[in-house]
C-alpha cells in the first residue's frame, strides 16, 4: 500500500495504482474535474500513464462560483 494526500486528506492506495484507477476508486466517475500532482498540472490525456507514488499530493478541482 502507499499513502497519498487527496485534497489535503490522507488516502491509501494499492502499489502501482494509476491515476485513472485512483479516480475510479474514489468514485469521481464522469465528473468534470482537473488534476494536479505535487503542484504540477496533469493533462487528462495522461491519467492512464501516471503511476501514483508514496507521498504524492493530489489536488482535484471542480468548477465553483468565482468573481
Amino acid at each position, binding site marked *: 500500500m502507499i499513502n497519498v494526500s487527496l485534497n489535503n486528506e490522507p488516502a491509501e492506495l494499492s502499489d502501482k495504482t494509476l491515476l485513472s484507477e485512483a479516480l475510479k476508486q474514489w468514485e*469521481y*466517475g464522469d465528473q468534470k*474535474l482537473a488534476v494536479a500532482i505535487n503542484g504540477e498540472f496533469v493533462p487528462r490525456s495522461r491519467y492512464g500513464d501516471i503511476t501514483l507514488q508514496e507521498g504524492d499530493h493530489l489536488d482535484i478541482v*471542480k468548477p465553483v462560483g*468565482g*468573481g
Partner: protein
Amino acid sequence: MSRDSLTLYGETFDSRFLLGTALYTSPTIMRDALQASRCDIVTLGLRRQNPGDRSGDAFWQYIRASGCKLLPNTAGCKSVKEAVTLAEMSREMFDTPWIKLEVVGDDYNLQPDPFGLVEAADELTKKGFKVLPYCTDDLIVGQRLLDVGCEVLMPWGSPIGTGQGLLNRYNLRTLRERLPNVPMIIDAGLGAPSQAAEAMEMGFDGILLNTAVAKAHEPPLMAEAFADAIDAGRKAYHAGLMERRQTASPSTPTIGQPFWHQS
C-alpha cells in the same frame, strides 16, 4: 447610436458587463441575476472538491445553460507557480485559453502582487493563454503587462468586496489617457451602479463585479440596475460630458428677463 461592441482578444460582445458567479444564496438566484444582467461573460473558479460532493452540479448546469463566455480566474493564488498551474487546470476544464489572472500580494486587502502578476502573465502568454490581468491602477504595471503580451487590463476600482467605488481617480484617468487604445475593464470594488456609470463615463470599456450584485437583497434587480448604469455611462462617454465650472452659469436665457430694471 450604432452598435457599440466590446472587443477583447478579437472577440466582440454586446454587453460591457462581466459578472461573477460567487456568493449567491442559491444557484437559481445566480441564474436569474445572470439573465437580468444581460452579460455575455461570466467569471468562475476552481476549488478542491471531494468525490461524493455533487453540490456544484446545479451551478455548473446553469452556467452552461447561460451561454455566456467563461472567464475562469486564479483567485487566491499567491505565487506565480500556483497561478500558472491553476490556469492550466482551468484551460483544460473549461476548454478556453482565457484566464482572469490574479496573483494576490497581500491578504489584508487582496491587493495584486504586481511583480508576480507580470511574471505569471509572461509565462502564460508564452503558453498561449489570453490573459486578462486583475491589476492595480498603476500605469507602469499596466505597461509592463502589455509588454509581456496582455491585450486587456483589468485595474481595480478598490479592493475586492469593499464596495468603495473608484478610490484613485487620478491613477485611473492616467491609465485611460496614457493607454487610450487598450481595452480596460474596471474589476472589483464597485458597490453601486452610480460607481459603474462613473467608470464608464471616464472611458473605461467595461465593468466586472460580483459582490455588489450577489449581496444585494434582490440580486437580479441589482444586476439589471448595474446593466442600465453601464449602458448609461457608456452613452454619456460617447456623448461627451460638459466641462466642470467653478461658478454658476444660467441655463435659462437672461435676455428678456421680466421684472428687470436698469438701476
